């Protein structure tokens, strides 16, 4: 975008400096942090600009021999329910799989690629990336063995593509494999081909959707037969630990793989991933009693975490990601039924369609208090929908909490207080139903918003829906979030890739959730804008990473400044780690992204 030109110029200068060696990679990244411009796509910017993709930070792995570390006990408050990475439904399943299976490369916490089964990360210099952005060539590590002793080769990689893209397999990873072609170049080289220039190429075979299953055990079980594969329950992978036992929803157990392909790894003799319970007691077991070494995804009030940390057995660790807790304002009328559908695109919301009302509501969300008193370190107040990677974070939005200003805006907008203290205009009252899923921090957040609204003459009725219903795709149930049969709702959208493209589909007109598409569209607010549509289409065709980022930022700005959504806090992933355990989470990959490097100080 033109208004972004100065930034673009500055960036190009910096990239040139890195290329000529005037500026180190690390300084470049740090500079970008200062500019508000860094992380995974930033490293890809360097790649496309002809700067070698440095190996991700070399790990400071200390142990000098394999094994001897005793047991590693980890706690997930939802246990893994299956162990085939192509069927994985949630991160719990992906994490369970990641103990045994590995991708070609992982995303490290800074969003850089870290080679696992790949010999090196493809870039322009090593010929891994083509200039036209239409192919990627991966060189595979030699001498890698499956747990049953068979060699790992390019045929396995190609097979995973065939397996996942087959709709009959019903793989949850299909989205990463269906639009591409994969070919074997030689036994240890594969090439991924795209139809059109693809700016974000590191999707297939990378991270949580890139784990590779062995061809020799799955070849007979593709398509409709996929559910009968014995290996679904007894995984045979290449990872640092071999399979021992699995009880769905309860625990996964593994033991050291003596033939692992990285030297002196792994450190632990056995690994246990125990599931079940709740997040608070999981944190307690690591931080306070030390019964366990690691606990996953602690969606807990920070105050509780801080108190548990005083137990002295462990620490909490935050990995930044892009998950955003936000409030959606319905653009359509949820109380009028049109052709068997409420919140239909054919309607306008009677009061929320007035921008003054939306603006007032945005002023009434006390984000700072929500951060200070509920989420703490685990939820940072923000005015943006896209909060990470930094390269995509807009500087053009702002937020404040100001009841007086909200009152003034409503007064000016002609919304007068009635006898009951509730504002109204033309017989329409400012009364809203505000729904969210059942989750203690969310209910507190609702209470904070409701109280501020009361002071501004807006009546809010709180509604909470059990998560299993709210987050379901049940066409018949009006309480699911895609139906959005109420005025205001709040939840977290997770950002699974270090790139906001799919994430921003939530603001394009062709993705509106309607009865016609069985509410499967991703645009839930029903907010549409031609400008946003155009910017999105332009970004898809743009190979220049800087220009592309500018288009994506524009979509964020349009949605936030028009108050289609009110971002509240963005939520890094939080984990509890035993004080002796050396491990680091990544907000862009499985918690086990570098499990082979985990070790305990003696």
């Amino acid at each position, binding site marked *: 975008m033109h208004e972004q030109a100065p930034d673009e110029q500055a960036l190009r200068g910096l990239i040139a400096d890195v290329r000529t060696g005037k500026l180190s990679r690390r300084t470049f990244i740090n500079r970008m942090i200062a500019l508000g411009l860094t992380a995974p796509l930033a490293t890809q910017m360097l790649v496309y600009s002809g700067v070698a993709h440095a190996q991700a930070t070399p790990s400071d792995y200390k142990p000098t021999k394999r094994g001897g570390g005793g047991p590693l006990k980890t706690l997930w408050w939802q246990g893994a329910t299956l162990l085939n990475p192509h069927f994985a439904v949630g991160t719990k399943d992906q994490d369970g799989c990641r103990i045994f299976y590995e991708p070609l490369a992982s995303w490290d916490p800074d969003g850089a690629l870290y080679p696992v089964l790949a010999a090196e990360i493809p870039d322009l210099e090593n010929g891994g990336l083509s200039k036209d952005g239409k192919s990627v060539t991966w060189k595979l590590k030699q001498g890698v063995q499956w747990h049953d002793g068979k060699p790992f080769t390019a045929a396995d990689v190609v097979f995973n593509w065939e397996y996942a893209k087959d709709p009959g397999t019903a793989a949850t990873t299909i989205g990463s494999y269906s639009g591409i072609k994969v070919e074997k170049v030689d036994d240890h080289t594969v090439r991924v081909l795209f139809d059109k220039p693809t700016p974000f190429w590191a999707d297939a075979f990378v991270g949580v959707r890139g784990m590779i299953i062995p061809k020799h055990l799955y070849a007979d079980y593709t398509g409709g037969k996929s559910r009968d594969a014995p290996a679904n329950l007894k995984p045979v992978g290449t990872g640092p630990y071999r399979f021992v036992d699995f009880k769905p929803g309860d625990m996964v157990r593994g033991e050291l793989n003596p033939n692992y392909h990285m030297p002196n790894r792994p450190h632990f003799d056995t690994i246990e991933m125990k599931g079940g319970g709740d997040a608070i007691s999981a944190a307690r077991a690591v931080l306070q009693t030390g019964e366990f070494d690691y606990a996953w995804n602690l969606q807990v009030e920070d105050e509780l975490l801080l108190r548990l940390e005083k137990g002295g057995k462990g620490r909490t660790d935050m990995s930044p990601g892009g998950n955003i807790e936000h409030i959606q304002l319905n653009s359509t009328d949820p109380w009028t039924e049109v052709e068997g559908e409420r919140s239909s695109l054919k309607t306008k919301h009677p009061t929320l369609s007035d921008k003054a009302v939306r603006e007032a509501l945005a002023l009434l969300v006390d984000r700072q208090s929500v951060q200070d*008193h509920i989420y703490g370190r685990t939820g940072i107040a923000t005015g943006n929908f896209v909060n990470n990677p930094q390269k995509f974070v807009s500087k053009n939005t702002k937020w404040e909490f100001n009841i007086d200003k909200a009152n003034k805006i409503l007064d000016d907008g002609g919304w007068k207080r009635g006898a009951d203290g509730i504002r109204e205009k033309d017989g329409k009252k400012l009364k809203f139903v505000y729904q969210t899923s059942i989750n*203690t921090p969310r209910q507190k957040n609702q209470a904070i918003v409701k109280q501020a609204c009361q002071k501004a003459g807006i009546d809010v009725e709180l509604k909470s829906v059990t998560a299993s219903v709210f987050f379901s795709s049940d066409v018949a149930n009006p309480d699911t979030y895609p139906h959005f049969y109420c005025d205001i709702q709040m939840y977290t959208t997770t950002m699974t890739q270090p790139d906001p493209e799919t994430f921003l589909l939530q603001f394009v007109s062709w993705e509106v959730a309607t009865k016609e598409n069985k509410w499967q569209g991703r645009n839930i607010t029903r907010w549409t804008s031609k400008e946003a549509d155009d910017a999105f289409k332009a970004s898809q065709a743009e190979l220049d990473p800087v220009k592309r980022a500018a288009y994506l930022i524009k979509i964020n700005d349009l949605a936030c400044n028009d108050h289609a959504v009110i971002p509240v806090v963005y939520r890094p992933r939080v984990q509890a780690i035993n004080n002796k355990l050396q491990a680091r989470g990544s907000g862009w990959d499985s918690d086990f992204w570098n499990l082979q490097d985990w070790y305990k100080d003696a």
Partner: protein
Amino acid sequence: MDGSTLVSPSAEVIAPQRPARPFSPWLEAWRRFRRHRLALASTVVLLLMILAIALGPFVWKVAINDIDFAARMQTPSWSHPLGTDDLGQDLLARMLYGGRISLAVGLSAMFVAMTLGTVIGATAGMSRGWVGPALIWLTDLFLSLPALPLLQLVIYLFRDSLKAAFGLEGGVFVMIVVVIGGLRWMPVARLVRAQFLSLREKEFVEAARALGASKLRQVVRHILPNALGPVLVAATIDVAAAIIAESTLSFLGLGFPPDIPTWGRILYDAKDYLDIAPHWALFPGAAIFLTVLTINFIGDGLRDALDPRKVM
């Protein structure tokens, strides 16, 4: 409840003796009830609790949802007699407000469960035809139904129509009472049936039958009073269970809106702060305990009062 602490249980129970009085079974029952000191004291305590939650909000005018981050998790003080919760909301106000719902839900759901259970159990216990097995089948069915999906179905099917018929809170109230009562009557039915099977063959019932007492009379006058023991126990247990179940329901989105502080809800919210703010859990826990205690003693007193064989 704060009101309850004012009462000294023994002080209230002075049974005035009135030597000459006209005889009536109800007066007689009342006389017997009054003699049961704990029952009388419990009645007074329960009435005081009801009075406190009915009138309390008019005296203690702090709003239940007044968030004050400066006063988070404070221990009891003059400005917050029961302390505050983690959003700095006044616990006294919340306890008073929530008490209305908790007590109403607890008592009504208990009555629903007891009535259903007694009627079904008694009918099954007296029947010698197909009605008995049919009712027992119904009991087994309800015992087997998994509560959670059933509740989700109920809320999904009936919430909007109930809301339309009884208003927001009224609709939720009716639904909760029906749901809790409707899912807790089965043990009572089984217990009552078992008592009936045994009692209907006892000599005194046979005597009544021989004297030509109708079936209804046999049940109401002779069998039921002797089968009430387990019912009264179940009643006290169910009051507690209903108050707690209400809070569980609100976690399923079936209960009252999340900002309505019922006792069970306050207790649930408080549990994770048990080690830093024990007062937060103490008051709702004590309130539920006191309710259970009083209901139990009132039940004991009632049974003694209605049981003519008991010599007092």
